[in-house]
């Protein structure tokens, strides 16, 4: 019924030494449906390939079996060979008579016998192969980048420069992310704003970037090349098209809110921009502190606005975006250390978290860059506590990676800006980055005191009210230490964003046990996700420093380009499909698929597989009780037949 050709390769002596090739050929000729069987010294050579091609034509072959080296070696080569004759490339079967036969035995009898069994199995399987055609889909060239921190900014700029349209979606009123809060960056100590703000501005200016601040993605549908994304534009109560960024409104505004930007260390106006270098330079109204929204009257801003940009009636709006690929760069939160009562954060005024300190150093910060305690005084001694909540099995097992280095940076800045004694309480110093060890050595020389031991408790000093005491065990001297200080800086664990689970669900990502988004493969696909066309960059994938984040952003941009630079893309041909006639609607496939390819059609009471999402692992087919799922190229029938063929001899 089929017309099968079997081609056995000698591979010089690699195969022929322990497998009697001509005996395999003779054997193959006896098998039903085998029309021709041939041998050749090197089947992968040009004459070998021509031999196959000529036989395909001469004998009108519709299946080809090549017994040679591993399919991992030359399956692609031979697929091309048969495809060149017009035969579908999936009608090829490779029999591994080298790596898994001739090379692993020294007995020619045994090798030959195994070769026969393998060829028989291949013939059984080949009979049932079907031609497969990859589906070609149109690719939307636009890109959505979610998150306007340094990762998102970098990726967006890179992509926009190639001429692609990029939508940069940012939740807060400005782009910039955490990096915009920093003062200096380790280990070079260059000013964060100096390197970031030009980039922020570039985003604003770029004709190919549509910047969408104060926006959130609410729904993602579709698949690679054809995503449908719904973005919510939160009501700003200021028409940014009209606003000319004069900020007269901010000046007049009586409302007072808490500045998230300054980590709560400062107040902000109800209508304001988060910080002076914010992009865009246009304000939004914070309903929670706006006098009008709270009390029903005020509207001072409306009166002063010459552009008539204030609009208290504004509602949330929804925008539909179509895109071919998505980069998720949603960043991180710092762990809330209040529950760790032993450190007194939130209760003892002298205890600060790392980001608060960043703002203290920043000249645009609440203190104008001066390091003062909450009472305005300058601290005389400062303790920096590493690993608060991280490397801690009771909280977060992972290392937050950047704390050692920013703690060193803090020490340096404290030394620079105050005359205080600075103490580092650390578990291990981790300085594994370019220039990091050097930076560490430099800080040691700056007379910063290093105590190897994790800070265990912060208490208020009994002897000197207002001062703090750090309790710790110095693990080098094994002595317990009670160190009185004026200021304590906690380096809290870097944790996933509070809404990471929602983001994960929306983009069909998976997460590791800490909640950071999972890459498709830890080594070989560190930026791809289980959802084709969705990439991740930056700290949402796991704690990392700015250089790594930027590198990931650039990598993700390159990955995206491989998709959107073509207007069509070929989908995997060896995907699974559902035969609706026999689907019982049990939804096992939906439950086991890591890619979200199957879904349940309630109307028809059957499951359906979105081939664009399918990676062809076939696990749905094994979970399917009725055999309704056909894992193409590895169908139940094909595998069963191969087993039968292998077990016959």
């Amino acid at each position: 019924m089929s017309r099968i050709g079997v081609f056995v390769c000698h591979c010089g002596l690699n195969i022929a030494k322990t497998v009697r090739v001509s005996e395999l050929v003779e054997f193959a000729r006896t098998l039903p449906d085998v029309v021709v069987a041939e041998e050749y010294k090197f089947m992968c050579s040009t004459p070998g390939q021509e031999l196959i091609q000529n036989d395909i034509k001469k004998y009108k072959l519709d299946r080809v079996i090549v017994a040679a080296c591993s399919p991992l070696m030359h399956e692609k080569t031979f697929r091309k060979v048969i495809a060149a004759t017009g035969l579908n490339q999936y009608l090829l079967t490779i029999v591994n008579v080298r790596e898994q036969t001739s090379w692993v035995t020294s007995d020619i009898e045994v090798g030959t016998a195994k070769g026969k069994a393998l060829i028989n199995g291949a013939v059984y399987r080949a009979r049932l192969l079907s031609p497969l055609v990859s589906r070609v889909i149109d690719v939307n060239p636009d890109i959505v980048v979610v998150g306007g921190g340094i990762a998102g900014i970098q990726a967006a700029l890179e992509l926009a420069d190639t001429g692609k349209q990029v939508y940069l979606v940012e939740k807060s009123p400005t782009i910039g992310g955490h990096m915009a809060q920093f003062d200096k960056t380790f280990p070079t100590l260059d000013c964060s704003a100096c390197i970031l703000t030009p980039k922020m501005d570039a985003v604003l200016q770029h004709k190919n970037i549509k910047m969408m601040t104060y926006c959130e993605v609410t729904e993602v549908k579709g698949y690679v090349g054809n995503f449908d994304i719904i973005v919510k534009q939160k009501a700003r109560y200021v028409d940014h098209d009209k606003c000319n960024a004069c900020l007269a409104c901010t000046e007049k505004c009586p409302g007072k809110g808490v500045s998230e930007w300054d980590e709560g260390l400062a107040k902000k106006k109800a209508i304001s921009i988060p910080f002076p270098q914010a992009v865009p330079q246009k304000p939004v109204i914070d309903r929670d502190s706006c006098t009008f929204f709270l009390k029903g009257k005020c509207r001072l801003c409306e009166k002063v606005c010459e552009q008539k940009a204030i609009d208290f009636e504004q509602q949330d709006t929804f925008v539909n975006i179509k895109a071919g690929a998505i980069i998720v760069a949603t960043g991180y939160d710092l762990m809330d250390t209040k529950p760790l009562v032993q450190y007194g954060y939130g209760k003892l005024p002298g205890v600060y978290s790392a980001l608060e300190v960043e703002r203290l150093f920043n000249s645009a910060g609440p203190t104008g860059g001066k390091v003062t305690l909450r009472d305005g005084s300058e601290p005389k001694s400062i303790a920096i506590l590493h690993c608060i909540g991280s490397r801690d099995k009771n909280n977060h097992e992972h290392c937050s990676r950047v704390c050692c280095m920013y703690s060193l940076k803090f020490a340096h800045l404290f030394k620079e800006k105050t005359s205080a004694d600075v103490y580092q309480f650390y578990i291990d110093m981790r300085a594994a980055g370019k220039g990091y060890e050097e930076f560490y050595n430099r800080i040691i020389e700056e007379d910063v005191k290093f105590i190897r031991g994790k800070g265990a408790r912060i208490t208020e000093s009994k002897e000197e009210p207002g001062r703090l005491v750090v309790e710790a065990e110095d693990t080098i001297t094994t002595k317990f230490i009670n160190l009185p200080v004026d200021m304590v800086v906690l380096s809290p664990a870097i944790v996933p964003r509070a809404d990471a689970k929602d983001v994960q669900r929306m983009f069909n990502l998976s997460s590791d046990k800490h909640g950071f988004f999972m890459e498709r493969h830890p080594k070989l696909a560190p930026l791809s996700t289980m959802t084709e066309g969705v990439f991740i960059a930056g700290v949402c994938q796991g704690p990392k420093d700015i250089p790594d984040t930027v590198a990931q952003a650039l990598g993700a941009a390159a990955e995206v380009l491989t998709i959107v630079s073509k207007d069509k893309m070929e989908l995997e041909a060896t995907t699974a499909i559902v035969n609706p006639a026999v689907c019982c609607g049990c939804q096992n496939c939906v439950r086991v698929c890591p890619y979200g390819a199957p879904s349940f059609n309630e109307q028809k009471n059957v499951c359906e597989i979105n081939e664009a999402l399918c990676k062809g692992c076939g696990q749905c087919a094994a979970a399917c009780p009725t055999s309704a799922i056909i894992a193409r190229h590895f169908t139940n029938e094909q595998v069963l037949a191969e087993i039968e063929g292998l077990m016959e001899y």
Partner: protein
Amino acid sequence: MMSNNPYIPMPVTITKIINEVDTNDIKTFRLTFQNKEDEQKFKYLPGQFAELSIFGKGESPIGIASSPTEPGYVEFTVQKAGVIVPGLVTAALHDLEEGAEIGMRGPLGKSWPIEFLEKKNIVVVGGGFAFTTLRSLINYMLHKDNRKRFGEITVVYGARNPGLLLYKNELAAWEKRDDIKTNITVDKGNESWKGREGFVPNVCKEVAPSPKNTVAVICGPPIMIKFTLPVFYDLKFAKENILTSLEMRMKCGIGKCGRCNVGFKYVCSDGPVFSMAELEELPRDF
């Protein structure tokens, strides 16, 4: 005893394969007998069917597409059945080449009632793939020895598009004859299609055969049958004079296995040819 065993197929050879349609899923197989006795015993009339058999795959009942007036062989037009998962036998048949041996059991079932049709005008209405036993009937009636036995012959045959029409050469030949009125139609034509466009029921309406001394023989997909029958009722055809061929899952083909049982009939042995009057007597369970 075994020589009369109705379950044992006779060996036949595929001597010719014709690819009938653009979609490559309908082929006509010409089968010749390997044993002379088998050939002599295989006496059939249009409308009957046979079980084609491939060992390891099974059997499939297929209507005979050739006419008994073509001696020496039997032809079957076979569609590859099944949408996502193809039928075992029909798919295997499609994989075969000329020269291959298969099995055949038959002829089975009742034919179009030739004696009843004699001296009457015949309207043959066919749709799509279900034209095979109608072709047998037409060729039978058109044979020079038989033509005089029948009155006027009108054919209405339609397919979704020109590529899906079966027996294209024969259709062309019929159109040239004046002893048969041939009306070929397609739902939707293409650039090269010069013929009629329209659905079979509408064409029947246009042709409007007189019911007087006329029998309508109708085969086609359920949807076509559904809309064609009212046309003939409107034309005042009696139910006895409208014939069709039923489709039902069959196994044995000889009225034993119970599968094709509808009411007190077995479609395989009491049919598959029924008049509308006979069908009305049966419960609606097919």
